[in-house]
């Protein structure tokens, strides 16, 4: 008994200074090898925090009209300037970040889940299930997205929830095809046939072989969904179907006052425009780096 205890503690001690946490090595690899992606991550997290703490950071309210301070160029009091109603642009951009975070992340989550579910089930099981699901996807994809959005806006009013759900659905079903094609090409691979012949169960195969191989496209889909959602909202604002006032969105500011006062007050467009472009860019770049690093077939290679 004594020897057992000794050997166990010895073993325990021996095991202690093993590999460092996987997370830490991930970050190390990111910052060392994928500098652009790292930069993207930093920017994205920065805006995420700005969005989360918007209420605390913003110097003015999101809709604080001050008719005496209309169309002021950037100054110490208003680092981003003011708009045609005297509202502080910096604060509105900060609140815009909040909405972009909400819309972007919600849509990305919803759409990725939908894409994954539909793509994997359809691609893996094939046959009749695949046919049925693909017909449904086809039908859905041929709905001009605009009709869906206008109908939703007319019947349910235009609001953040409606926009998130509709965009999530549209992007999700659209992305399912890419997931499906990845699954299909994996399905035919040798080692799945091998695994099946061994008698591995479907869920096990899905988990161990299919899932790791569809993760890269899913990651790309997720990151591009965030960007696509933020961009889609800006397009909707241009058509008058975006998030209604008083919530400021970057897209709304850009397509509204940004365009109207483009020449008298360029800061009205520059501020939200740069925020929007920067965030979408950063997220996409980070997503790319992530995919590069997580791809199982890339592990071990450079």
């Amino acid at each position, binding site marked *: 008994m004594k020897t057992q205890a000794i050997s166990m503690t010895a073993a325990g001690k021996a095991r202690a200074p093993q590999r460092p946490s996987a997370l830490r090595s991930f970050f190390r690899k990111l910052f060392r090898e994928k500098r652009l992606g790292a930069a993207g991550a930093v920017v994205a997290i920065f805006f995420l925090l700005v969005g989360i703490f918007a209420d605390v950071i913003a110097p003015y309210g999101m*809709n604080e*009209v001050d*008719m*005496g301070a*209309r169309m002021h160029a950037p100054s110490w009091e208003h680092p981003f300037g003011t708009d*045609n*109603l005297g509202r502080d642009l910096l604060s509105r951009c900060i609140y815009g970040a909040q909405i972009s975070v909400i819309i972007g992340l919600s849509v990305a989550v919803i759409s990725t889940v939908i894409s994954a579910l539909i793509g994997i089930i359809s691609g893996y099981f094939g046959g009749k299930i695949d046919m049925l699901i693909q017909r449904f996807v086809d039908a859905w994809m041929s709905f001009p997205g605009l009709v869906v959005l*206008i109908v939703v*806006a*007319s019947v349910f*009013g*235009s609001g953040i929830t409606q926009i998130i759900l509709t965009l999530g659905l549209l992007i999700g079903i659209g992305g399912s095809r890419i997931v499906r094609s990845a699954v299909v090409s994996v399905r035919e691979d040798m080692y799945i046939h091998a695994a099946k012949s061994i008698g591995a169960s479907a869920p096990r195969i899905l988990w161990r072989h299919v899932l790791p191989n569809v993760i890269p496209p899913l990651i790309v889909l997720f990151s591009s969904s965030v960007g696509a959602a933020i961009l889609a909202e800006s397009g909707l604002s241009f058509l*008058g*179907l975006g998030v*209604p*006032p*008083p919530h400021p969105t970057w897209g709304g500011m850009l397509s*509204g006052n940004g*365009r*109207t*006062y*483009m*020449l*008298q007050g360029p800061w009205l467009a520059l501020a939200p425009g740069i925020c929007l472009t920067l965030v979408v860019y950063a997220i996409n770049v980070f997503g790319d780096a992530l995919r590069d690093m997580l791809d199982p077939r890339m592990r071990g290679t450079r």
Partner: protein
Amino acid sequence: MHSPSLTTLSRIAASLALAGIAGAALAQAQAQEPKYGGTLNFASGSAGVATLSWDLADWQATLQTRDTGQFYEQLFAVDLSKAKSRGGKYPFTISGWQPTDAVRGELAESWSWPTPLTLEVKLRQGVKFPAKKGVMEERELVAEDIVYNFNRMNTSPKRTQGYYDHVEKVEAQDKYTVVFNFNKYIADWDYRFGNGFFSGIVPKEVVAAGAGNWKNVNGTGPFMLTNVAQGNALTFSKNPVYWDKATIGGKSYQMPFVDRVVHRVIKDDSTQQSALRTGKIDILSSISWEAAKELKKSTPQLLWNRWLTTSAPRVALRVDTKPFTDVRVRRALNMAVNKQEIVDKFYGGEAALFTFPMHPEYVGYHRPLNEQPASVQELFKYDPAKAKKLLTEAGFPNGFAFKMQICSCNIESMELMPLVAAYLEAVGVKMEITPMEYGAHLSAMTSHTNAAGYLTTIPDVNPTTSLRINFGKDQVYNAPMMNDAKFDASVAAAIGERDEAKRQQMLRELTTQVLDQAPAIWMPAPYRYTAWWPWVKNYGGEMFVGAGRVAPIHAQLWIDQDLKKKMGF
């Protein structure tokens, strides 16, 4: 920040200078000998909706007349020689009305009333429908055409029921004489058929070939429709046998001068303005004051005209819904909003306090604000203390909340309303802004299911019609849901009054009454601008000869192509 007086002075100076330039340009043009040829490109407001149907029997009024009016003429139009730019007193920038002393017969040469209920119209002789391949030969307009059109409009399955109830019969007495037999007199008889939205004269050959097909349309007007690129441009060519002549510098000239007119359908404001800047458009009507400010800087050669919109916004308050059943509450809300500040700050001074529905251009019907009784004037003065007092009196010391529906397509008002909401909040009233999509918003009003607060910008078209259609019981545009039998009867009586001076007085009083009742929060009406290039001659910024028609204005202008080339276009 500039001192207000300096800005006002400079603005006055600017508009004087502009008027001077425009007037001088016009005077010079008058002296200049007009030349033929060239193409006129014009684009209108941001609606950018192309003609929806070419068949007048589809009763699409407001959308049709601008384009169908290029070839379908009517019995009457305004006399453009009475335009302000020519030294007269009318700017002709409103769509639906013709001042009585500025009426000119278009297809009608003269008219008279043999009996109080009989109108005898003598048509111009020698007015021709041009030949149209596959549709008709060239032929003269005759009285039968007028009769035919009236009957066609009156039996169309899409007509407004009861619109022509006042007409007993229309008949052709001889080749050029049409007789209208009325069973009662209404003041807007000419608006309903004569110079209105439903008064175009279509030859029966076109109807036989298919009046809804743009390839068939053919009228007596100055231009003929030659090409339709739906959603992009409508092209019209000169009518070679047009009847009217223009008098310039004492000499008489055959109209029209330009070879072609192209109506460019451009939905996007920035695109419109860029096209104007680069000379792709010659005339752009309906420009916002902000865009005008910028255009004046970037393109100083443009000529300008300013006009007050007829689409004044107002927040209709449903008088049948609490708490707006109490007139004190409605008046209080009016006093709680600082309308003068909205004019000065939100619109940069480019707006006016508006006594809806009487537009200042309705000379004789319009009573300016400073001549209105004190009770009306106080609705336009900012007095939050009094507002709160009234609210307390009415039983709302702590205010209340109400929903206000607004069209999300109305960008300017979408910006303005939070400001109004802020004013109301200061007296404890919470206005919940509910944006709605265009169709849903419009339908809420026409089906009488709109919320207690409803932002409407339905234009006032006509001094006799506007009171009726905006405040009459069950009327389509009656967003406040007014239901005042006495008021309706008074309006009907005014419309039935033959004597114009008396009619004007009755309507002035009725307007004051409506203003006083405050079935809406009256809001300032913004000014809008029309811009055109100096090579467009014999044109002073006029917009309508009645009922949305612009063709006669286009017919008498000419393009100075040498000047255009000299300017580098």
